[in-house]
């Protein structure tokens, strides 16, 4: 058996906690390809789900129903919209710069997706583990500004131009604050308890050093037995807060959605875009939202770690099924239970569907959806699957919380004015970021 095949087999059969498959380039490429496909399908599904959830949650906050017609409870609405956008006439303004106009959405989509390369969904679930992962992430995500500038400039129209200028100024301003917060997190990786582990992996020798690898950052939180959110309370919390605000501003979402503030700039930088080109912006926006949330989860919320990861509880022995700490067992059941609860909700929805033949297809569809959710829950009960996938589950759950926050903010807050946004960025976030950084470093010296 060649070495790469052996490593593939090992990877499937053993839930080893070291990224050993890096050793072989071919195996590395194969696994990378599989994860690439998984990420693209996963992110696409997540974007579709986000689209539906955003409409539904926002609608419920606003005492409305949201989409109800296409599919049961409008479940197929995003797909219907995608199809509609696909066959919609695409208008490129006469005076637009054709090449740049075409390139802008492509650039944005590429940058929004490329960030996913370094995101670890689990200790082994990542496309690759770069030792400069965090730097790569920051670098790639700043290229997104370029796409927006291109879109606004190429349109050759006033509203897009203003939108893109606002957007770029906003994004670069908040990138600094974001960078400060990120540096604090990197500092924390080198503190107490972090050192030994990295000596094992990267062999850096005696002193404990920090890391820029995204997997490494979560490992550091594992080793220090805390989420960086709670590190040096409230320093970690403040740094996280800065990151969380900067993250919303970076993705141009409410209350910082000035670039596309529809009440002022109509639609901002994508005013002139229509049809599928527009939907690429949409896709990129949501992909970027998920990406930055994932980064926030990785940096501050312990990545794939479950809550109370350091507690294991008294040992339990269940033959052929599981053995270990009782708390571990309890948390291991959560993924399956979550899906069962979702399935239950879908099932209740099925029962409450109007009894009319016009709704028969929708009712059956919803029942099928409930069954599918229940089936996923059942599969997650299987120990091997569970052990391999629960990292991804916890990670996704944390990201989902962020996604909900995005929708929640949008449903609640008014929009900042541009100068106020810049004030907040330059006069509050950056000084606070520097202060937190210095304090973290000072405290870190002692630890």
């Amino acid at each position, binding site marked *: 058996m060649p070495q790469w095949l052996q490593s593939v087999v090992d990877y499937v059969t053993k839930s080893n906690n070291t990224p050993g498959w890096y050793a072989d380039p071919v195996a590395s490429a194969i696994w990378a390809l599989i994860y690439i496909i998984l990420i693209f399908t996963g992110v696409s599904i997540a974007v579709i789900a986000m689209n539906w959830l955003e409409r539904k949650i926002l609608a419920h906050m606003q*005492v409305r129903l949201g989409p109800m017609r296409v599919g049961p409870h409008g479940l197929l609405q995003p797909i219907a919209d995608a199809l509609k956008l696909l066959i919609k006439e695409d208008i490129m303004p006469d005076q637009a710069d054709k090449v740049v106009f075409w390139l802008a959405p492509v650039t944005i989509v590429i940058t929004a997706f490329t960030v996913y390369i370094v995101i670890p969904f689990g200790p082994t679930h990542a496309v690759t583990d770069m030792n400069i992962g965090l730097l790569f992430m920051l670098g790639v995500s700043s290229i997104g500004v370029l796409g927006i500038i291109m879109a606004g400039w190429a349109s050759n129209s006033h509203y897009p131009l203003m939108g893109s200028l606002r957007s770029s100024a906003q994004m670069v301003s908040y990138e600094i604050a974001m960078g400060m917060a990120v540096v604090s997190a990197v500092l924390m990786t080198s503190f107490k308890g972090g050192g030994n582990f990295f000596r094992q992996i990267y062999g850096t020798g005696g002193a404990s050093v920090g890391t820029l690898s995204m997997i490494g950052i979560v490992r550091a939180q594992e080793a220090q037995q805390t989420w960086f959110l709670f590190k040096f309370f409230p320093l970690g919390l403040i740094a996280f807060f800065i990151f969380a605000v900067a993250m919303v501003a970076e993705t141009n979402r409410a209350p910082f959605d000035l670039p596309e503030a529809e009440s002022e700039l109509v639609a901002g930088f994508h005013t002139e875009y229509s049809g599928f080109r527009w939907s690429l912006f949409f896709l990129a926006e949501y992909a970027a939202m998920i990406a930055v949330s994932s980064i926030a989860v990785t940096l501050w919320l312990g990545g794939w770690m479950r809550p109370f990861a350091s507690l294991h509880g008294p040992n339990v022995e269940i033959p052929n099924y599981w053995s270990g700490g009782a708390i571990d067992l309890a948390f291991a059941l959560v993924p399956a239970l979550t899906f069962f609860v979702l399935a239950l909700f879908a099932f209740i929805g099925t029962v409450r569907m109007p009894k009319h033949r016009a709704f028969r297809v929708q009712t059956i569809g919803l029942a099928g959806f409930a069954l599918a959710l229940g089936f996923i829950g059942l599969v997650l009960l299987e120990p091997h699957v569970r052990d391999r996938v629960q990292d991804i589950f916890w990670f996704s759950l944390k990201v989902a919380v962020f996604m909900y926050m995005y929708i929640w903010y949008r449903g609640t807050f008014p929009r900042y004015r541009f100068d106020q946004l810049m004030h907040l960025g330059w006069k509050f976030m950056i000084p606070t970021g520097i202060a937190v950084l210095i304090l973290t470093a000072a405290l870190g010296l002692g630890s």
Partner: protein
Amino acid sequence: MTMKKLLRKVLLLDLLQGLSLTFRYQDPKEIYTEQYPLQRPEVAERYRGAPRLNVNPDTNETLCIACDLCALACPEHLIVVTSERNEKTRRKELTTFTYDLSRCMFCGLCEDACPTDALELTQDFELANYTREGAIWDRQTLEQGPQPTVYKK
């Protein structure tokens, strides 16, 4: 007072208040939307909707005496009434009655003017038409009244 304000600001209480309000409203019980064709709105008794020319239910004869008062009362002059003098009874009898719904603003002045309660604005509100001509109702349509498609739950 200032301390309280400062605390409110630092702890983001003003924002959290709003957030908790929108969070509470997610309760499905709060939903206000009506699913229109299935859930039909209850229209008030006095609602001024589609016009109807009433007929005597027993004899199926029109109640309209062709007095032309509705046409005179209409601010938009959209009612056209023609009549013929019946030599036998020596009374005016209605021949045609045209009501141009596309210009109607449902003010109800015609209804007020009618001495016999023949012209009435009913509770029907579904007046959409594919053509402009379809919005001009003649005597027969007016006597039948609008017949909207009824969806059932």
